[in-house]
């Protein structure tokens, strides 16, 4: 009733082609972004530091993998390692040139990740599907091996760990222990919004269409004049760039220090699940996937004891953990059965239904 297309006339091509064609959509997005910024001042430290910052970091990594797997159709299991490249590159850069702003280095470190991603994307021209997944798995193991074996990467730190030295932006600490969750959150949120905006323009334009053409049928795409090698490598580069930035954000703005083990194969799977559950080939799906896989278990951990308390059932921390696993697992299966195309498709269907509600035709 309130959400409908009727009466919104498009008189120019530009207005007909915009991402959000309805003014309700545009208003909704503005409200969500405003609310996201407002949460920086209203949310508790726990909400910001343990829920929202990691959610945004994972959403960014999921967008990265979605560009590669969802849009360009190249399956990758090296996401964790590419995130690691970004984190280690950022560490090297910010310790070597401490005077340059850390935000610059976070964004630049993505390029190192992109270079490594391109290198490991080379086999994608010859191999496809599961075989490519195995090739990217090699990237995961090789890079992880590098993180352990090359002490130069951590500046010969005896403990082999990355730590976050103090860095400021306009005199306010952003990275390091003294940075408040508010500042970290605002920085992460801004970067994620900007990078999502870039990605959304990328996938709508020439490059995105090339990726989609390659995904749907690479032979046909080649016959239409799309050069496969460049297109696939570009997908690997852009995807790794996003993952690299997400990795740098993860270590320096979320953990504040980490060892090589956080970039292990489980991390890669974690993000792949987000992409699959959220919806392949959808940016908003990346956010949904990150929310379901990361926020849902935290929510359950808080809600379950409260729900069970009135019945006099006190459950231990480990039982909650087991319940979390079971419920999240069941939910994943449920969503995949109800909508194999992911949460993004559900969202789309919901919006379609709303448009014609209450008089569907």
């Amino acid at each position, binding site marked *: 009733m*309130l*959400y409908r297309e009727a009466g919104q006339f498009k008189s120019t091509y530009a207005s007909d082609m915009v991402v959000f064609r309805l003014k309700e959509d545009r208003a*909704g997005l503005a409200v969500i972004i405003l*609310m996201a910024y407002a*949460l920086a001042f*209203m*949310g*508790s*430290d*726990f*909400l910001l*530091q*343990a*829920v929202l910052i*990691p959610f945004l970091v994972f959403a960014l990594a999921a967008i990265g993998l979605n560009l590669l797997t969802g849009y360009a159709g190249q399956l990758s299991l090296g996401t964790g390692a590419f995130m690691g490249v970004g984190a280690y590159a950022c560490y090297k850069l910010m*310790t070597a040139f*401490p005077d340059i702003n850390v935000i610059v280095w976070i964004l630049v470190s993505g390029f190192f990740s992109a270079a490594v991603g391109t290198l490991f994307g080379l086999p994608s021209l010859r191999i496809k599907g599961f075989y490519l997944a195995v090739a990217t798995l090699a990237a995961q193991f090789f890079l992880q091996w590098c993180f*352990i074996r090359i002490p130069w990467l951590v*500046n*010969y*730190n*005896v*403990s*082999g*760990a990355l*730590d*976050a*030295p*103090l860095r400021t932006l306009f005199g306010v600490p952003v990275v*390091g*222990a*003294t940075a408040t969750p508010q500042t970290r959150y605002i920085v992460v949120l801004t970067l994620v919004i900007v990078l999502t905006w870039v990605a959304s323009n990328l996938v709508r334009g020439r490059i995105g269409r090339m990726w989609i053409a390659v995904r749907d049928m690479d032979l046909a795409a080649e016959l239409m004049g799309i050069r496969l090698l460049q297109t696939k490598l570009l997908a690997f580069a852009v995807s790794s760039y996003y993952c690299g930035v997400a990795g740098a954000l993860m270590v320096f703005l*979320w*953990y*504040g*220090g*980490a*060892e*090589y*083990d*956080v970039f292990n*194969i489980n991390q890669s799977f974690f993000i792949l699940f987000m992409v699959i559950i959220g919806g392949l080939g959808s940016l908003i799906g990346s956010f949904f996937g990150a*929310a379901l896989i990361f*926020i849902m278990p*935290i*929510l359950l951990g*808080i*809600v379950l004891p*409260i729900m069970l308390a009135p019945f006099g059932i006190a459950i*231990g*921390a*480990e039982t*909650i*953990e*087991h319940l979390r*696993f079971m419920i999240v697992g069941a939910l994943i299966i449920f969503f995949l059965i109800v909508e194999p195309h992911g949460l993004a498709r559900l*969202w789309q269907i*919901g*919006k379609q239904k*709303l448009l014609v509600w209450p008089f569907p035709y």
Partner: protein
Amino acid sequence: MSLRSLSLGLVVATLLGGAALPAAAQDSIYVPLFTYRTGPFAGSGTYIADGMHDYLEMLNQRDGGIGGVKLVIEECETGYDTKKGVECYEAVKGKNPVIVNPWSTGITLPLIPRAAVDKIPILSMAYGLSASARGDIFPWVFNPPSTYWDGMSMIIKFIGEKEGGLDKLKGKKVGFLHLDASFGKEPIPLLEELAKELGFEAKLYPVAAQDMQNQSSQWLSVRRDRPDYMIMWGWGSMNGGAIKEAVRSGYPMDKFLSVWWPSEDDARSGGAGAKGFKMLNWHGVGATYPALQDIMKNVVDKGLSKTSKDKVGELLYNRGVYNSLLIAEAIANAQKLTGKKVVSGEDVRRGMETINLDAARLKALGLEGFTDSIALSCTDHNGHRPAFMQEWDGSKWTKISDPIEPMGDRVRAQLEAAAKDYAEKNAGWPKRTETCDKAS
């Protein structure tokens, strides 16, 4: 609008949920315990968790807490996962915890810089960052009773004694089977330094984290190289895997030594062949100590514990008890120092620095002979205490040596280098501003 409002509802629910978390009452001391009863390391983590919880619960039941103030003990499940550990830290931070024990090096590292800011001391008992033994640089981090360098020097000393003097090690081969991570690699510089000096050959056998249970290739190399002694630095399933492989490849068990992390279950997995396996340890095994009897009576028999009776007094259970002993002592010291009953993280940090568990104090706590005395200070957050060697006799551990003193000067040299290194790389690392208390 339905989905949008749903997501909005989720956010609101999270906010409310965060607010509705039970806040620690004002007249109690909140002690969070980071435990892992799930995940790949649950086999070790469950015993440690039970030990930690039961000792503190015993104080609650028997004495009504510490100094008359009840302890609020809350477990947070980490699954040995850094992500969840950091989440746990954020969850407990707002409830005025007096100390945190991450029980994972991976979780300890991100928390170290935050400790000073959030004013919550970290107790990483014989794990974590070895350089944090330097109290002048890391006032908020404690890692008693020994570092891995201490451990390595003790093992070499023990082997030397067995051979009839350290000089007899000349020409021998010593194999070092370690987890291929910072934890396993840390003692290597010291081992290599000692090898050069004493003239023995050090052979390294790294085990990657994903091959912990399948060490056939490493043990094939061991069979080829035939080292005179094997030293192991492992955790979780790596220990059990190594003992099984050693038995299978017929390596003489009495020449197989380990740092302090294997458990009874690891040794049992080797079957009868595991007899003679040796490891360092710094506390007693068994439930005969009066304090452990009190745990039996006040906690386990009342059904307040998750452990089964026969597990009380096992090696890792008692390690959990030792961990809680340090926490309780730090809280008691803090009460004495400040005169307050309900102490804060800042007070407990001071309490930790003034820990002085001598024989008399241990006796008073009902733990006579449980462990060697230990005293920490503002500069020394580790103690560098001696440990003893114990041997697996097929069904239980038996102590086979007196406490072995670590090679203090060499450990200090490693520590100096690590601390200097840390200070150089972290130009912005804050200088210690916390004042120093006289031991109480």
